[in-house]
């Protein structure tokens, strides 16, 4: 067991973690933050994506003990009321089918829009290619990202 303090969704959590345990399982089994999902465990599918200092990271292959001092955002921490532009766009385009992969999709899209507020299809496909969806929601993910870009632009227009 190693002691580590993880900063997750703006809160510090002091944890005793078995050596080698990936962040995914620290979130799910130590903190009951079950929004981050397991699917492959080897870093190929992107379902388990979280944001670390704003960048998408596969939590299933990231040892939790190495994450001290980093700002971790899980799907629970994006906006708990679903008011983030990406969440709103995801609802309005009704992207989810089974919904299992969608946390990883949403966080990856959030990181994309942070770096590129108005991505074209190529940029979308490039950024999102790491996150699989068995239900085939890809055409809607493209639409939802474009919609989220509009929502975000409207929001910043309102506040400036």
């Amino acid at each position, binding site marked *: 067991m190693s002691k580590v303090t993880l900063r997750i969704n703006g809160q510090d959590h002091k944890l005793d973690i*078995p050596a*080698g*345990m*990936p962040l995914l*399982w620290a979130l799910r*089994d*130590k903190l*009951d*933050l*079950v*929004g*981050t*999902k*397991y*699917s*492959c*465990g*080897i870093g*190929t*599918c992107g*379902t388990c994506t979280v944001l670390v200092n704003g960048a998408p990271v596969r939590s299933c292959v990231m040892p939790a003990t190495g994450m001290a001092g980093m700002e971790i955002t*899980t*799907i*629970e921490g*994006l*906006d*708990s*009321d*679903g008011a983030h532009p990406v*969440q709103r766009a*995801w*609802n*309005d385009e*009704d992207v*989810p*089918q*089974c*919904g*299992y*992969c*969608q*946390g990883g999709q*949403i966080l990856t899209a959030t990181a994309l829009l942070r770096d590129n507020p108005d991505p074209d299809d190529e940029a*979308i*496909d*490039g950024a*999102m*290619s790491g*996150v*699989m*969806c*068995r*239900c*085939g*929601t*890809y*055409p*809607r*993910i*493209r639409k939802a990202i474009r919609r989220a870009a509009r929502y975000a632009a409207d929001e910043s227009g309102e506040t400036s």
Partner: protein
Amino acid sequence: MTQQTIDRRSFLRISLLTSGALVVGVASPGWLEAGEHDDERWVPNLYVRIDPDGTITIVSKNPEAGQGVKTAFPMVVAECLNVDWRDVKIEQAPLDDRYGRQVVGGSRGTPDGWNDLRVAGTAACHVLTRAAAGQWGVAASACTASGGAIHHEASGRSLRYQALLEAAARLPAPDVADLDLKSRPEDFTLLGTFVPGVDNPQILTGKPLFGCDVRLDGMLYAVFEKCPTFGGRVRRANVEQIRSQPGVTHAFVVEGTDNAAGLQPGVAIVAETWWEANNARRHLRVDWDTDHADSTAGYDTRAEALRGERGETLRADGDVERALDRSKQLVEASYYYPFVAHANMEPQNCTARFDAAQNRIELWAPSQHPRGGRELIAATLRIPERNIHVNLTRIGGGFGRRLRNDFMVEAAWIARETGRPVQLQWTREDDLGHDFYRPAAWHHFRAGIDDAGRMQAFDHHFVTFGSRGRTVSGAGLSPGHYPAGLVKNFRLRQSLVETNVPTGPWRSPGHSAYCWAYQGFFDEVALAAGRDALEFRLDLLSRHYGEPPLDLERTSDTLRLAAEKAGWGRRVLAANRGLGMAFHFDHGGFVSHVAEVEADGNRIRVDKVWSAADVGPILNLSGARNQVEGCVVDALSTAQLEITFANGAVEQGNFDDYELLRIGQAPEIECHFIQSENSPTGLGEPPIAAATPAITNAIYAATGKRIRELPFSRAGIALL
């Protein structure tokens, strides 16, 4: 405690709860037929409740796996009740006999529910209207219902439903036969519109919803190691050593049963966290006792030997041999598709809590067929069914995999052995290695073309999989399937390759595989006859011999619509582009697709797919489109994949060697629906079958390469 108004002539009951809520319930006909008219036991298979604060609650009895039933069905009730969708709340029912069928599968949810759902909403509206009319002293026929209120236009009066609950409950339940049920798409205001899924708020914020999200007090986590060779038994395992691994609380051998879809032999490891349980598995050494060594190479050899044999004749119309001899042209081709896995994004899991004192067990199961799971647990653990309570969780992808409940019985067994609540979570490797696969098959076709360019003979030798002389699950082909009935001289013969591999239903079982072979071959026949692929198919669908195998008109209409939208025959395409088409009918739905493909040598991109579907009226436009889009993506994804066997075990391990389609490879999809008053049918399955051949036919048009074997890589074709 309820006051009740009972009308025994109908299946309806209207009650007022002590809370003041009005409940309208519809009982399943089965309940009445069974003669169980005892009032105490009466629980509707569906109900709608209107609370005094105006909230409308509709119960959703079927599990939700992403097909959208949890949204679409309540929409039907809300439509007939004439309420605002925003006032509606959905409640997920647990498994309960009194709800009747609770299965996701066979696209049957929609046809099964259509009547009851409309009856529930319409009956509630009926009594509310009469209650208002009574208070105003006007004729009910002079009143209208909309937006959760009854209106009397002549006097300009309105009453909200919540003001009418008591009065409505005092009225007799209407006779179902007297209710005027909405059925025409033009009468709908809510149905047919784009409504986001009711679980979206939880999905988009990561709230617990799925089977693996369940957390119970004192819960432990488990993994279950089974023999890589299907059905292998445990001779010995180093469970002592496993018990000393960090975090591990229990490790034990499960003797299991012979039932491939039940409790298989294996070793359970239970720990404080799932990762510790799975990590301990690295040290697990099991001596397995296995008795077969099935392999893909062995299947191929056997199938090749069977190819020249006669096989068993399943159907013979006219005289195929003679007609083939006399035909002007003979076209011959063989098609092969491999085994594939379901690969649900959420690997199998189940949570169970056993109460030894009462011999009771409670489960949280992402199952498509929870009743089957309950029966399996009752039989295996010898717990009476009434002591097994199953909560239905949202399902992270079904596709037919979760019609089998092996993961439920495993969780139940492990929870009983450990005496603690346990969540069993399979790894991706467990999931790919212990699926019920869609079986491979070989189709050997011969067609005879007459002077007019018509296919007047069709001979089909279907080499599929069996066990002890009977086709295994998902490996059958109905002798009534088209082109039987569309071709004058028709013969279907079948031969069986023996297998020990578990197989089962996979999204649109059978259809999603063999439609590709038929529709690819039709293109070959059309080409040989010098005919356009559309014109050839429409002609094929213009006559029948005996009972037509499908509704010829509805099928043709979807084909024409997809072709028209794609500009079939009207567009000039660059040499490296091509269009392809296919039609199909299954699970009550008619769907045709046209695909457009762009090629760069042997690398291709599917740019766009135009889809036309006829499944009666569309309930939720969003859900309907989602299913069409999902099926097209699934078809393209699956056409790149293959499960192979060696030494009785699966060779693929994880998504690195069973890689689903990525976003950049997904085409644009344009959906069109032909709506009608026909009863609506489901869309979870029908759009997939024709998508694969539309794409491969387009690949031929773009590259000149006919794909007769899947996955695409066998034909040297890769996706850009």
